[in-house]
């Protein structure tokens, strides 16, 4: 899946980490001077197919919803399309879709609404070719807001579905 970047520094850091367990690493990194094959030759430490890679590659990991709604609006479509493209490049990556609601709903209904939103996003991604077996859903109802105010702007941010890549 993920390919190790191959700068000397990273390689020796990895060796050092492996050394903590006092075992030889199962696969030795290439010797200095060799170049590794693979699609990336960046010198940063973001691993392709990782959560960090996903979050910097896609338009957004979050789509938003109107009050009490769970439809995928045009902006959400754009975002999910960008996610599905990335997911197509890394077919072995599993994701979790978190569904959230704002505080202006009752607790149990909001758990159900979060589930609706997560599944709406899942269904859209599936329609875009993402294997639904890769996608699990979880609802947080109104339990985990990201915007803490009690105003329309905060509530709009909290009505969301977030795509989390499982590393």
């Amino acid at each position, binding site marked *: 899946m993920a390919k190790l970047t191959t700068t000397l520094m990273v390689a020796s850091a990895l060796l050092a980490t492996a050394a903590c367990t006092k075992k030889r690493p199962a696969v030795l990194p290439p010797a200095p001077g060799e170049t590794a094959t693979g699609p990336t030759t960046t010198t940063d430490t973001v691993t392709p197919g990782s959560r960090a890679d996903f979050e910097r590659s896609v338009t957004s990991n979050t789509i938003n919803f109107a009050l009490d709604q769970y439809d995928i609006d045009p902006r959400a479509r754009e975002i999910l399309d960008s996610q599905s493209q990335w997911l197509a490049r890394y077919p072995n990556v599993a994701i979790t879709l978190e569904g959230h609601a704002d505080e202006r*709903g*009752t607790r*149990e*209904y909001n*758990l*159900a609404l979060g589930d609706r939103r997560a599944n709406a996003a899942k269904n859209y991604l599936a329609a875009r070719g993402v294997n639904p077996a890769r996608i699990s859903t979880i609802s947080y*109802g109104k*339990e985990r807001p990201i915007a803490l*105010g*009690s105003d329309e702007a905060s509530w709009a941010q909290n009505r969301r579905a977030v795509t989390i890549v499982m590393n």
Partner: protein
Amino acid sequence: MHHVRNSVLASILCLAGAASAQVPPNSAPPVAAPATGQTAAAPDAQSDELVVDVVGGISAPLGIAIPTMPAAAVTETAAGRTDELGRQLSQIVTNDLKGSGLFNPANAQSLKPVEFGEVTAPVFDYWANARVSALVQGFVRGNSDGTLTVGCYLYDVFSRAELARQGFVVKPSDWRRAGHKCADMVYAKLTGEGPYFDSRMVYVSETGPKGKRIKRLAIMDQDGANHRFLTNGQSIVLTPRFAPNQQTIVYMSYLNERPAIYVYDIGSGGQRLLVNNPSLTFAPRVSPDGKWVLFSMAVAGNTDLYRVPISGGSPQRLTESPGIDTSGSYSPDGRRIVFESDRSGGQQLYTMNADGTNQQRISFGGGRYATPSWSPRGDLIAFTKIAGNFRIGIMSPTGGNEKLLTNDWQDEGPSWSPNGRVLTFYRQGQGGGGKADLWSVDLTGVNERKIPTPLDGSDPAWGPLRP
């Protein structure tokens, strides 16, 4: 003060519907009343001359005196010294009665000390001058087997008659319950309502920042005493409810990032997953016969009501609408269920038989109706109404006579006292610093008061009367 209230008594019965027929039987105390060697005056046949007006506002809470209960002898017990217990017991009774909003207890400090011999032979001249209508006297005795005996006597000061007496033999760890049982005796006798003070609440204790609340299950006596945490805060916990036997709590937890319903044993502290299914399960309630758990399950984006034996097994599906069906609550006879559904476009209340048949909408007002809770008296359904702000309300089980009881920004999640007279709910404050707290209100809409908890709180569930 002193009311002749026969006509009001009649309207109490009408308002409460069949309430008096459905008041839970007054539980017998653990042991019969003790003999004190003195005969008290016979209970006044016209005791309904001393009646607390429970209808339409508390214009005149009944003046009542609850002096410190003397000890038969000052001895040490496992609960403490008997004279100190007597002081605290009268305080428990005072706080319970005052908290109901229907009584105005005289300040115990200002009352004369009561000798043990007076307990069954009150000095009525003194009490008449104290300008109270009712008098509660009692005593405490440590028994040789380590238990405590608490006697409780209620007198009508004006007619100088004993209205009721009960005795309670309790383990030292349960000593406060004797105070609550005494308050219940007084309350039930003078209001005609069922008792409710000897009960507990389970709720979610909250602390921490709004975006990442630390939530723990907690249990306490309804007056806030004997508070203890049941979970450690590492997982979000929501909506706990008692099983009727009070040995078990059902609740929802995000343990292992897998939100699901757990059955928690209060005695052992152990718990088990109720339904082994990858779908989200939540909103649990135990049936009145203790056999079923009614709950909601979200399958591929659609939430319906189900029930499953409390011992686990295959869930039986009860509703099949494409809407969100949740927050089910049983009628006290277990034959009907009230729930909320947005199948008509927004959350409204519906009732159905316990097997899912005969589903009927009962709410038709503007706004949304949610979190229904069927009164243990059967006569009312409480709910959260959302129309701008969130307000606690009640309506009849067929949907009429809607009345809103509170009017704050976000009041949610009503739960009934065992006598169907008082509702507890939680009130959320606005903004990033907004916190949730537990509150209670009388079903006539008065006596709204905050329930003290060590931290913040939400999702209160009032347990049954303790036997």
